[in-house]
């Protein structure tokens, strides 16, 4: 069960990170600064709990507010530019934050040991959870609860008038400006909100890993942050959650048994996903018929039941399945993912039958696209008349 609690914490933190990028993406700006805000929240709240002995909830909020304040300060010069310029400006900001922590050393003596971040070695003593006797389950519930609050907040923002203004700026900023929207105020506010959310996420992150260093907050994490909402789609917040579960749960954790090949597959799958569904998972889900939606729901519930059964039955089922698998290097949890795909496909004969129709149709479509790219007409040849 430990694995699943750990995964739940990971998904919670990364969903918050993704939602922070989601807010600023609504205004049409790609921000690579989210890892920087995460770092600010992580270090500040870690210093508050480990060095000043604060409770985690105020530390969480102060971490978020600090990141929001810095986002506001940086937002004014950075949001003078947009598009690629903004991407580069935020990459530079994120790297500057990372390098700041790389050069930052501040320690206090607590009992026999020195506590605090040491430049390149990082910050090792964020032991709030173990020191206060929180179990893995407590942590998972706490992190998921914070995630739910953040998600509800962003969902509400989406539905409110403010969300409409954000999307208006994202669709066409000049048109929004001409109906009286103050672009700078809206963009900086969105940036500050996203900074706050990322700061809170960072606070959770540092307490969940207990050890942070500057290398955790590089460009790669910033890319992940924007990848979640883009892969999930900007229609609603649930897309981001689905993308986090897909990327962290399936691509990163689920494919661990592939070893070295996993990382290769990772980049490849992102490219494929973007070619197949440029507007994100949610748009694909919306195009599904009710029939296939039921399959997705049913498959997900089936997997959860399978996992819970494996965990609750005291390992007997797990031992049985892993005995069947032998020494292939596969584990019970991997089989849960495989089962998800199998269940989705083979729920009924009709499902299987439609799959056999879908694959050739997809191949034909792909071939048409390639023919078109080579300059031939995709139009069908006229049928022979007998």
């Amino acid at each position, binding site marked *: 069960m430990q694995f699943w609690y750990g995964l739940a914490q990971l998904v919670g933190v990364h969903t918050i990170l993704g939602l922070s990028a989601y807010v600023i993406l609504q205004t049409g700006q790609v921000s690579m600064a989210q890892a920087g805000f995460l770092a600010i929240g992580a270090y500040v709240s870690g210093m508050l709990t480990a060095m000043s002995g604060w409770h985690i909830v105020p530390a969480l909020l102060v971490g978020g507010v600090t990141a929001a304040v810095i986002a506001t300060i940086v937002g004014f*010069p950075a949001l003078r530019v947009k598009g690629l310029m903004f991407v580069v400006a935020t990459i*530079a900001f994120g790297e500057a934050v990372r*390098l700041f922590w790389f050069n930052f050393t501040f320690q206090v003596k607590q009992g026999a040991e020195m506590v605090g971040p040491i430049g390149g070695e990082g910050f090792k003593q964020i032991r709030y959870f173990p020191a206060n006797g929180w179990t893995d389950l407590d942590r998972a519930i706490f992190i998921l609860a914070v995630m739910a609050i953040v998600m509800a907040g962003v969902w509400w923002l989406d539905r409110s008038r403010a969300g409409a203004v954000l999307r208006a700026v994202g669709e066409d900023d000049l048109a929004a400006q001409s109906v009286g929207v103050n672009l700078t105020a809206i963009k900086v506010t969105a940036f500050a909100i996203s900074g706050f959310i990322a700061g809170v996420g960072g606070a959770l992150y540092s307490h969940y890993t207990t050890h942070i260093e500057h290398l955790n907050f*590089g460009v790669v994490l910033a890319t992940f942050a924007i990848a979640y909402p883009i892969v999930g789609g900007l229609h609603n917040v649930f897309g981001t959650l689905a993308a986090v579960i897909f990327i962290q749960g399936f691509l990163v954790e689920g494919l661990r048994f592939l070893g070295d090949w996993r990382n290769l597959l990772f980049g490849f799958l992102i490219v494929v996903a973007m070619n197949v569904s440029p507007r994100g998972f949610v748009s694909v889900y919306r195009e599904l018929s009710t029939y296939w939606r039921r399959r997705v729901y049913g498959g997900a519930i089936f997997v959860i039941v399978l996992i819970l059964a494996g965990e609750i039955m005291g390992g007997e089922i797990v031992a049985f399945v892993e005995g069947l698998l032998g020494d292939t290097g596969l584990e019970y949890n991997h089989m849960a993912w495989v089962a998800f795909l199998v269940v989705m496909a083979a729920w009924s004969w009709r499902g299987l039958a439609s799959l056999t129709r879908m694959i050739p149709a997809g191949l034909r479509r792909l071939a048409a696209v390639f023919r078109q790219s080579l300059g031939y007409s995709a139009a069908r040849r006229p049928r022979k008349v007998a």
Partner: protein
Amino acid sequence: MFGDVSLLDLLQAITDGLLFGATYAIIGTGFALIFGVMHKINLAYAATSIAGAYVSLAFASLIPLPAIVVFLIAALASGAVGYLIYLTCFRFIPSASPLATLMATVGMLILIDEVIVHETNGMPQPYPALFDNVMIEIGNYGLRGDLLFIFGLSIVATVALVLFLYRTRLGVATRAVAQQPVAAQLCGISVPRTNGMTFIMSGLLGGLAGAMTGAAVGTLSPLLTLPITIKGLIVTVIGGLGSIPGAIIAGLLVGMFENVALALRDVQERDLYVMLLLFLFLAVRPRGIFGKHSTRD
């Protein structure tokens, strides 16, 4: 604050930085070329150039080759990878989804990096340099031969690019597509083909830059891609989006600035000052050195 750095050391740092900045200038030019034509970012560009350098290294390890041939192989291989990136990340993704293109190039960046790690087991590889034992010395002041060669090569590459853009039919087509894709299409120019050619051209430049970086640093490592991507993007922004002369000047400027910061402070803080330089530009002159005022089409 500046320690004991003499004027001569400072002059030395500035020259070395200017010479090494040539690689940044070339990378920035490649970014500017793609942005000028497609109005999109190719984040896999630096990975393309490093990939080309690795392919040339693979050839060099099979048969002994003179360094200049190795450089040419790097350029050609990068051109091929550049076209592959055009096909996978730009060709089939609708132009109305710029975010999907951006993500796809990130995916290619990760994929290329991981292929390199997979093939070399993550070990840095030594890269052959030209004239690395030549040193032009004037008293205590010296010019590194390999850096001078890199500088010369990048001048040749830039001149070749300008000749291509302004003296050939394909160059005219490229500029036409950059200016007005629809009008270019109406004149009978194939937009996908021209875009593909742009990616090949920028790939050739990138391969050269990758080989130059490898030669100047002495080793090739997949860890090089991210810093080069970031520096290249910074150079593009400081120079002005889509401006080739801007990218060249900004590349030399960033190289020089970085080396001076390295001489005055230490290596941990070097990149911090480059980021600050970018922020200074954003605050004072957001459109960069040669950028146009943003207009609405």
